């Protein structure tokens, strides 16, 4: 019961930690990272965005915007989510991806809550927002599917992005409910069966924002490491879209390994306001979910 709230906190915090840690190495290659840091393993800011240590990017901010909408409405409300995304874009965020910006702009001008299918929408911008969705629909797979696709299609409309959202959402939920490693791996096998591009057995180190490479990176390190810290360090030192691979790895690993596994040094350096809002949102989202019965 209390464990559920703790794990939800660890999940959402894991997302923020992965974002802040990975932002330092975003767009770098593994060789460049090695030359500059040997191994990048502490929260130090910098990166191409020139961040302060512990500052987060769009991955965490959009997730918080999404959470804020659900908490204000007391439940799922896609319009409220779109409005929060628009307010976030207007507040001049530190970074915003091209596809996300186009989607929010489309909503601003037409009021439409779904972007049309686009070949170029196979980025990871919708998957990175899955933590609050997974927590709030915990206990109801049908609700997870509906809400995951609705929020994704605000900006990304592509079968690979859709499939990625559902798989990551289900992995987070399974982990929150205490699943073991084999169960999590089984969920990835389902994804690979449906979309063989996602196969990650022979991981070659590509870690771009293409959702396939993003999830291959996340799954590779998730299943070849034994702790939250090890998983995230592996992911962010792969460079590429490191803040987002870090964030996605963080939300799954956080839910899986739990609050105690989050490195204290990292938590201390995380932006204080972000940390407080994330912890508060995680708990309140659990209390909104169908799983609240178990509390």
């Amino acid at each position, binding site marked *: 019961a209390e464990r559920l709230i703790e794990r939800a906190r660890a999940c959402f915090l894991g997302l923020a930690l992965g974002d802040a840690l990975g932002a330092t190495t975003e767009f770098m290659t593994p060789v460049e990272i090695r030359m500059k840091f040997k191994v990048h393993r502490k929260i130090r800011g910098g990166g191409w965005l020139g961040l302060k240590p512990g500052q987060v990017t769009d991955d965490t901010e959009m997730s918080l915007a999404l959470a804020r909408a659900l908490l204000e409405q007391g439940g799922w409300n896609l319009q409220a989510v779109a409005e929060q995304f628009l307010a976030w874009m207007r507040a*001049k965020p530190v970074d915003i991806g091209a*596809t996300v*910006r*186009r989607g929010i702009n489309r909503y*601003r001008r037409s009021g439409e809550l779904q972007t049309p299918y686009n070949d*170029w929408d196979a980025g990871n911008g919708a998957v990175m927002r899955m933590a609050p969705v997974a927590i709030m629909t915990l206990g109801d797979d049908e609700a997870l599917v509906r809400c995951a696709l609705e929020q994704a299609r605000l900006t990304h409309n592509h079968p690979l992005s859709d499939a990625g959202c559902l798989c990551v959402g289900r992995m987070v939920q399974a982990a929150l409910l205490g699943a073991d490693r084999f169960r999590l791996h089984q969920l990835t096998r389902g994804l690979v069966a449906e979309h063989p591009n996602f196969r990650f057995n022979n991981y070659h180190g590509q870690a771009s924002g293409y959702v396939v490479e993003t999830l291959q990176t996340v799954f590779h390190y998730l299943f070849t490491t034994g702790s939250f810290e090890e998983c995230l360090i592996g992911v962010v030192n792969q460079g590429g879209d490191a803040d987002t691979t870090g964030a996605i790895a963080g939300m799954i690993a956080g839910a899986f390994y739990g609050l105690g596994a989050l490195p204290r040094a990292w938590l201390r350096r995380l932006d204080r306001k972000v940390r407080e809002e994330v912890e508060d949102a995680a708990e309140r989202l659990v209390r909104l979910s169908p799983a609240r019965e178990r509390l």
Partner: protein
Amino acid sequence: MKRIECIIKPFKLDDVKGALTNLGISGMTVSEVRGFGRQKGHTELYRGAEYQIDFIPKVKIDLVIPADQVDEIIEAVQKEACTGRIGDGKIFVSDIDQAMRIRTGETGIDSL
């Protein structure tokens, strides 16, 4: 796609840029130009003689946008850049056949 070219008074750049980012504009290219029109340059002392400075510093904003955003953009730029005094500048709209984002090879509206 359309190209919108705005020639404005230099001190108006920040205001116009602000209005454009509020409309979700993802990017623009800016250059310093000199304008000649009804607005007369001031006279300047140069090597002891007074010269009419005919060409007046302006800033040119070039932005390429989807065709359906043209009216809304023109309206926002005009509102922000206008002082009511001569020399406020011009907005020109022309056609862009193709566009590409060099980093990714994306083309068309997705490249903007």
